């Protein structure tokens, strides 16, 4: 409690002391309030400046990280659909691989001998199996040339009459045996 002492006379003296007002000196109230407002404004301004500075640093850091980011190697399984039959590119005569015979090596297979690209067919069979081979196509070569009758008989054609010539030609074309 203010001014409370066990001595009543001392309490009266302290009350008299408290009645004397301290001298404020050269303290200017209005100037102090003006400076306080300025300090408050400066503090708010510094707060915004700090926020702006932090944001600028964050933007620069993110930009630098975006530009100078290291390349990452990502390991993942990628499924690729592979066609069952690999297209065999047509080989030029000069670049065709010709298997060379060497003693001690196995004789090349029949596919290799039958086709110019037999080696590729062999690889295809080893990779994908026999089922991967294309179906054998029917013979599509040129028809055999017709053999003249006189060449078959071995006699000159003038020695036969017309009726015999027609009869023999019909018999040969129909496949009838004599």
């Amino acid at each position: 409690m203010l001014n409370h002492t066990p001595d009543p006379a001392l309490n009266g003296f302290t009350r008299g002391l408290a009645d004397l007002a301290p001298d404020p000196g050269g303290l200017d109230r209005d100037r102090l309030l003006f400076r306080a407002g300025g300090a408050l404004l400066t503090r708010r301004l510094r707060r915004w400046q700090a926020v702006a500075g932090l944001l600028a640093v964050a933007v620069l850091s993110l930009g630098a990280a975006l530009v100078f980011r290291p390349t990452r190697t990502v390991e993942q399984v990628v499924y690729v659909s592979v066609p069952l039959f690999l297209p065999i590119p047509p080989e030029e005569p000069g670049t065709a691989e010709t298997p060379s015979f060497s003693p001690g090596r196995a004789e090349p297979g029949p596919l290799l001998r039958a086709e110019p690209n037999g080696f590729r067919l062999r690889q295809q069979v080893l990779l994908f199996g026999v089922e991967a081979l294309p179906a054998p196509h029917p013979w599509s070569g040129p028809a055999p040339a017709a053999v003249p009758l006189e060449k078959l008989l071995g006699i000159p054609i003038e020695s036969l009459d017309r009726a015999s010539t027609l009869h023999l030609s019909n018999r040969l074309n129909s496949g009838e045996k004599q």
Partner: protein
Amino acid sequence: MDPTLLGRLIDGHAAALVLYARQWCAAPEDVVQDAFLKLMVQARPPEQVVPWLFRVVRNRAISVARSERRRQRHEAFAASRTAPWFAADPGKELDAQTLRAALGELPLEQREVIVAHLWGGLTFEQVAGLVGCSTSMAYRRYVAGVSVLRDRMGVVPC
């Protein structure tokens, strides 16, 4: 902080704070002004504003006094010795100049307790927290200082 509240604090406590700062330094007005500016920029106002102001003024005044001693500004300190500590009022029972002289003769430990309690309005608990002693020690310093003041001012106990 609300400027209206700051104005009320200045009106009610600035003079006592100036008197409190005078116990250490020669430029108490600057110290008190810095304390109010520091209060203004506080993000969260202290729970007990007046004891906080006295603490800030005390720390700042001690720091300024050290600087004044380093700079050997004896002229400024001598000028502060002649500055009035109390407002002159002929109608009062006690003379302000006599009180100033008697108060200046007291030890600093008693002076700051008397100023903080009598004119600052702080309780003895708050004064003890301010000067860093126990409440009973602050009370003993206060009673001893006031008794010496009464004797030196020639006040006869009735």
